[in-house]
């Protein structure tokens, strides 16, 4: 039970690595930087493994008390400990984070090999891992928020890693500021949470909720408000409508960063948060519906945008957004386990996709435009196969990880406790689009004739330290889903079973639903294989094949025939322009003409300068007293003494 008692070790290790690399790395040689960076994360992963082992030995259904290491803030009865907590959800998140980040670290040694500020990159990555682990392990909202903001910071640093590139810088700023908007809501949510429950510890809050009749702990209205506010944070962090705009731009950062932060871990923080807060959400139906709705809409719209993108990473970015949308859909319809499950599988295959894309870009010598590629499948076979597997997974081809998770979500949306057919439909179409644009990507990239100049670009397979992570992830993307498979072919869902305590312990009492009649396994397998998702996924595959292999001119014709919607989608629904016009410009105007010229220059500067002037004037008057003649000083002393004496004699007289 060592790690269980010393959880801090897990998060301390990456921090240590970050510190060493960041402070001393400048003079380190690459091997040292590698060993420090990778070593710290690897140790973290090992300690996670040990933790999992110890956790497995615990008696079933035991809920561990948070471990408080020291009191962090105390103000009145507002008390925040630096306390960490482990439960099944945490275990899963920990596993995903440590494992993926380990792989990404290894991958980066190859991908970033020739970059300036190599040590800087690794120290940032370690820092990110530290904050992510803090976020995951935190036992109270405030500490979670620290991790939350920390990962935001690291994302900012890493997106703007090439800080000589203007676009990178602005992308970093955009990412940070956009998420800040969401975090604002999150902050208010936290305050409201404390105001309502008088505590910020998850366990305390949940204990308040559980058992008490709906309005005893907090009225549904308040709960809804809290949940919505918290969800705003999630929307910002996980790039949901309407705050998803930063994620595509964040692709300016190095590809490993996109893989780790903007696909596998950070963007899923919102999902994790909602899942963590499930007792609250479960008690706020409206909020739940909002979550589901936002999720579904995002899933759909992002997918549509993804259809026409030509930048390989942009496509992946939008697919990430839409996949996150699926997760929220899953959470929203009450299938928390499914949402988290999709989170996990998505971490695998999307991480894989990004890394593979990175490998492609690596091979193409930095070119990201798909129209310039084509016919790469023989040149970089490993990458090709890995990417293909990932595509199958995300498209939901049966047997691959994504299939199970996404299918569970859609199933829940169709027949779950709070099912909603409209959302299901959106999700379904989105799934179709997903498979379409993914296969479009595959076909454009790996099939057909090379559309690049053979002489300029020397396509080559990536080194082992890049391909090995790909392979590992590919394996996981393949088998990763089977932990939940039996649910579909009858039997029990290990994953859900594992997570059950988290979502059941504090769940609201619901009328026991009659278990739907179990059909025969074979029947169920048939259903599973011919379910709508599968069909539509295959449809997407076929359409893509038709468009980009069979008759490549069809898309153009289609685009010409559907000019208006095409341009609309091509310009991402003009969302950026809309925001620019609706928010940024007015904000700029106000800041310039009101805050700057009026408030700052007139009011604040006026006050400060005024104070300064007063001080100067009075000083130049008063300094005359400092004649430098000690006798005058002496006389002043005597004057004071006389004053005191007179006063005291007066008091004495009064006393008598």
């Amino acid at each position, binding site marked *: 039970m060592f790690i269980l008692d010393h959880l801090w070790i897990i998060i301390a290790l990456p921090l240590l690595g970050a510190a060493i690399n960041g402070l001393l790395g400048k003079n380190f040689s690459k091997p040292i930087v590698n060993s420090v960076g990778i070593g710290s994360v690897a140790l973290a992963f090992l300690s996670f493994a040990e933790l999992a082992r110890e956790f497995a030995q615990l008696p079933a259904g035991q809920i561990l008390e948070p471990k408080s290491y020291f009191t962090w803030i105390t103000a009145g009865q507002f008390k925040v400990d630096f306390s960490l907590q482990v439960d099944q959800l945490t275990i899963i998140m920990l596993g995903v984070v440590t494992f993926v980040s380990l792989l990404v670290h290894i991958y980066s040694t190859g991908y970033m090999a020739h970059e300036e500020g190599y040590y800087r990159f690794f120290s940032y990555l370690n820092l990110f891992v530290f904050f992510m682990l803090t976020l995951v392990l935190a036992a109270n909202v405030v500490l979670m928020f620290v991790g939350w903001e920390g990962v935001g910071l690291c994302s900012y640093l890493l997106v703007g890693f090439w800080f000589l590139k203007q676009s990178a810088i602005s992308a970093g700023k955009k990412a940070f500021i956009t998420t800040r908007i969401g975090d604002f809501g999150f902050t208010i949510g936290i305050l409201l949470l404390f105001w309502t429950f008088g505590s910020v510890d998850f366990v305390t809050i949940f204990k308040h909720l559980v058992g008490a009749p709906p309005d005893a702990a907090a009225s549904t209205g308040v709960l809804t408000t809290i949940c919505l506010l918290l969800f705003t944070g999630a929307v910002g962090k996980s790039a949901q409508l309407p705050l998803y705009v930063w994620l595509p731009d964040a692709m300016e950062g190095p590809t490993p960063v996109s893989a780790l932060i903007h696909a596998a871990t950070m963007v899923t923080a919102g999902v994790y948060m909602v899942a963590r807060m499930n007792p609250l959400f479960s008690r706020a139906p409206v909020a739940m519906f909002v979550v589901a709705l936002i999720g579904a809409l995002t899933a759909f719209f992002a997918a549509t945008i993804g259809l026409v993108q030509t930048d390989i990473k942009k496509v992946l970015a939008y697919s990430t957004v839409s996949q996150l949308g699926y997760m929220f859909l899953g959470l929203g319809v009450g299938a928390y386990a499914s949402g988290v499950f999709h989170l996990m599988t998505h971490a695998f295959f999307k991480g894989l996709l990004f890394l593979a894309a990175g490998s492609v870009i690596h091979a193409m010598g930095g070119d990201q435009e798909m129209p310039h590629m084509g016919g790469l499948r023989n040149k970089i076979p490993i990458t090709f196969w890995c990417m293909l597997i990932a595509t199958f997974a995300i498209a939901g081809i049966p047997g691959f990880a994504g299939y199970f998770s996404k299918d569970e979500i859609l199933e829940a949306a169709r027949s779950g406790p709070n099912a909603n057919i409209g959302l299901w439909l959106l999700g379904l179409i989105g799934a179709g689009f997903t498979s379409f644009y993914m296969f479009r990507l595959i076909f454009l990239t790996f099939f057909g004739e090379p559309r690049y100049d053979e002489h300029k670009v020397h396509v080559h397979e990536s080194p082992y330290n890049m391909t090995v992570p790909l392979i590992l992830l590919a394996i996981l993307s393949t088998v990763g889903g089977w932990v939940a498979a039996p649910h579909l072919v009858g039997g029990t869902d290990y994953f859900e079973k594992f997570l059950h305590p988290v979502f059941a312990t504090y769940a609201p009492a619901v009328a026991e639903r009659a278990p739907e009649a179990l059909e025969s396994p074979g029947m169920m397998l048939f259903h599973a294989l011919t379910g709508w998702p599968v069909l539509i996924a295959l449809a997407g595959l076929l359409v893509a094949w038709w468009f980009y292999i069979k008759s490549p001119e069809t898309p153009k014709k289609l685009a010409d025939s559907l000019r208006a919607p095409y341009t609309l989608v091509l310009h991402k629904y003009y969302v950026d322009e809309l925001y620019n016009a609706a928010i940024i410009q007015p904000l700029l105007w106000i800041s310039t003409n009101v805050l700057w010229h009026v408030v700052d220059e007139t009011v604040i500067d006026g006050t400060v300068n005024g104070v300064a002037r007063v001080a100067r004037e009075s000083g130049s008057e008063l300094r005359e007293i400092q*004649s430098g003649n*000690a*006798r005058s000083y*002496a*006389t002043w002393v005597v004057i004071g003494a006389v004053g005191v004496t007179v006063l005291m004699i007066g008091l004495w007289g009064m006393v008598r």
Partner: protein
Amino acid sequence: MSIVPISYYLVLSAILFGLGVVAFVVKRNIITIFMAIELMLNAVNLAFVAFARAHNQLDGLVFVFFVIVVAAAESAVGLAIIITVYQNRQTLNIERINLLKF
């Protein structure tokens, strides 16, 4: 053999203290001003001893002891300072040592 009332001592100490203050403001010679301070200290000591006697407690005497010791230390440092000042300014008149001003 009757005792002198404490009040006499107190009045005397008050007078001496006052004279010390007067000397403090009237004199120009640093050393003399320093002496004026010593005079005030002495006056206070007298009051201390008188009260100690009046209340039959030794604390007053102990305080006098401390006052004397501190005064000794103070005079040692002060005179050293005076010497240094004199070496730099060739004067002891406090009104001529007025560089430290606005």
